[in-house]
């Protein structure tokens, strides 16, 4: 279940469609302050099903749709598409025939939100089910947000439990 490709369009500061390929090994993301690096992390958390706008640094979910700039008007929709390779067949049984799995999420200014798996409209539950037991998810130990690395150290002992339960 390696990440192969990420496409972002209309999500936060990515007004024009952009695509990033991720070869295996280590990929670095660099750039000046405020250019959009952490917005990419937010885009990945969002397409994996994040429901709380505060975890994406917003007040309400609409904040993730491109809100305009000096030279551009606000957009009406945000879409993120994440493509995984399924060569090792890790995904649940009914996806066994697919060598790639594409999940996508859309949000319209109207508040309507859509989820897709391999271009078939699905529910949030389907996306969450797809990833159970793979360690991928919005809360897991696999995404460390900016400034949060020390979280495990300063948390109360009871609050640390959830990371261990996630792994169990």
């Amino acid at each position: 279940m390696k990440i192969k490709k990420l496409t972002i369009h209309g999500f936060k500061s990515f007004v024009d469609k952009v695509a990033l390929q991720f070869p295996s090994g280590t990929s670095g993301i660099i750039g000046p302050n405020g250019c959009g690096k952490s917005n990419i992390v937010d885009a990945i958390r969002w397409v994996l099903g994040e429901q709380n706008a505060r975890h994406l640094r917003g007040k309400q979910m609409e904040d993730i749709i491109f809100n305009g700039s000096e030279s551009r008007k606000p957009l009406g929709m945000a879409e993120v598409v994440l493509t995984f390779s399924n060569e090792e067949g890790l995904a649940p049984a009914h996806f066994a025939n697919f060598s790639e799995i594409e999940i996508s999420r859309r949000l319209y200014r109207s508040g309507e939100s859509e989820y897709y798996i391999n271009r078939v409209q699905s529910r949030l539950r389907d996306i969450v089910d797809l990833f159970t037991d793979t360690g991928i998810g919005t809360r897991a130990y696999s995404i460390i947000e900016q400034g949060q690395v020390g979280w495990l150290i300063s948390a109360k002992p009871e609050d640390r439990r959830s990371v261990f339960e996630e792994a169990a």
Partner: protein
Amino acid sequence: TRERFRTTFDEINAKFQETFPRFFNGGRAELRLTDDSDILEAGVEIAAQPPGKRLQNISLLSGGEKALTATALIFAIFLIKPSPFCLLDEVDAPLDDANIDRFNLFVRDMSKISQFLLITHNKKTMEMADSLYGITMQEPGVSKVITLKF
């Protein structure tokens, strides 16, 4: 689930006792449950002792020591239950040059089992990456992606 939690906890604890000394070039660390008799409610305590120092409450560790201890624990969990990818957003920011080198060495090792995406401002970490993307805002407020190394 009580059994599963206990076994996973013990495995992660054993791994943490390996990853911590690799990050700190020595020293020791371990995990403890706050209440052994009630595994399903117990919290997890972390004991960490950098080389040459007395064992003290982890709140007294420095900013860099806390970041390294947390990373050693995250990588221990990762080694027990690998996830297909790992995303680290400026985790190397509080580290000094010697610790950045150790961190980068460890990440290169881990990237044999999972994909790593690293956001960084540090030149050493940039050089270590297999592929590199630059994010720019030449048009103010509009993010674009440039492929720098592939």
